[in-house]
């Protein structure tokens, strides 16, 4: 055990963890919006619209995240047309490519979580709202969404933790996140176990925090 290496690498790994958290929070916010949009499309009665939404979530849940990142980072740059548009400003940065891939991926899972949450709302609740003369829009925002949030919290908590682990793949497109820095230290010092213990503890600590935050909200929104 090389305790000195563990102590020395801790600040480096900690500052890399900040990048991990940044990647995570941005992609979660974008992913939540995408997920909500596709969950609503999925519940649409139009067959084409809901098939499209189903197809999206099927493809993104059925392929590895690594493939998705590589398609966006290496693949899209190949299209000449894209290079001339303003999108290129975004797509040439590995940071944004990673975020796009993460957001689309977590969006697919989130849409499934939200869809099942919407579907478990008892029709009686909506009928009660309607018979009170509340408009459809208010029923959606004030009744359906809060109940769906409550229903989906436990599953969404798991998704956040899975996504946090997913951000480690950013290191494959040259980003120096927690895993990226850990790999760099391992390959320069050849002390995999020590580095794993430090980096792993930071990840576990983040998992622990996310878990407790979700638990707090679950309690707050319970009925």
């Amino acid at each position: 055990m090389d305790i000195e290496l563990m102590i020395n690498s801790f600040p480096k790994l900690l500052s890399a963890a900040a990048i991990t958290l940044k990647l995570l929070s941005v992609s979660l916010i974008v992913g939540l919006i995408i997920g909500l949009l596709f969950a609503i499309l999925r519940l649409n009665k139009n067959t084409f619209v809901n098939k499209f939404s189903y197809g999206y979530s099927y493809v993104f849940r059925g392929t590895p995240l690594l493939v998705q990142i590589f398609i966006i980072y290496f693949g899209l740059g190949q299209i000449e047309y894209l290079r001339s548009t303003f999108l290129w400003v975004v797509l040439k940065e590995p940071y944004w490519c990673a975020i796009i891939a993460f957001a689309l991926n977590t969006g697919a899972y989130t849409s499934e979580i939200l869809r099942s949450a919407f579907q478990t709302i008892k029709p009686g609740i909506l009928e009660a709202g309607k018979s009170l003369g509340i408009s459809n829009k208010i029923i959606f925002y004030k009744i359906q969404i809060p109940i769906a949030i409550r229903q989906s919290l436990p599953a969404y908590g798991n998704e956040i933790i899975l996504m946090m682990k997913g951000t480690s793949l950013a290191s494959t497109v040259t980003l120096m996140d927690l895993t990226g820095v850990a790999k760099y230290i391992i390959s320069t010092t050849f002390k995999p176990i020590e580095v794993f213990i430090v980096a792993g503890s930071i990840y576990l600590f983040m998992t622990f925090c996310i878990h407790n935050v979700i638990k707090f909200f679950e309690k707050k929104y319970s009925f």
Partner: protein
Amino acid sequence: MELLAFGKTGWGDELFIATLMTIAVSITAMIIGFVFALVFTPLKLSKNKFFNFIANSYTTIIRGVPELLVIYLFFFGGTGALMYVASIFGYNDYIEINAFITGAFAIGIISGAYSTEVFRGAVQSIDKGQFEAAKVIGLSKFTQFFKIILPQVLRLAIPNLSNVWQITLKDTSLISVTGLVEIMRQSYIAAGSTRDPLFFYSFAAVLYLLLTFLSMKLINKLEVKYSRGY
């Protein structure tokens, strides 16, 4: 389409072999995972606090740390650990572990943590009366486990195990960082030499979709088989 031709001109045969490699690694990892689950599930269910602690640490750590980090630990640390053990037995030459074994082991340990949780849930949801009845009839411990408990556990566990399988299958793409030539690695090589990454990575995505789709079909059949009589 020329790019996918079989033989020396295209990448069809290489990708086909790579797909078989992905399947082989996934199945091996899944089996290693089952072995781990078989060891850790009883520890998790045991009344002994120390055993509980060991099993809980295993599942918590593996499920809370990114797969990629675990793979790096095995990739960089596996050889060192093995050489250390070998040196105790007096063998001091350099040992290189094959990428397949390292990869399958790393993924297997990850999938084992998920399988353990699945089996724990399944065992816990079996009615206590089943255990008691089996004991009362006077069946041996062996028969109790294999003829009474295991069939019921399997029925309850199959839907969740199919999720574990999907996770395992997708996780194998991460082994490509260690150089094992599976779908992802082969696409990387092909994309590099033809300068057509969009095509090859999209094709890799199609291959993975095909694998997940076909395995779902197969698992559904298994599910029907094991829920006979319910």
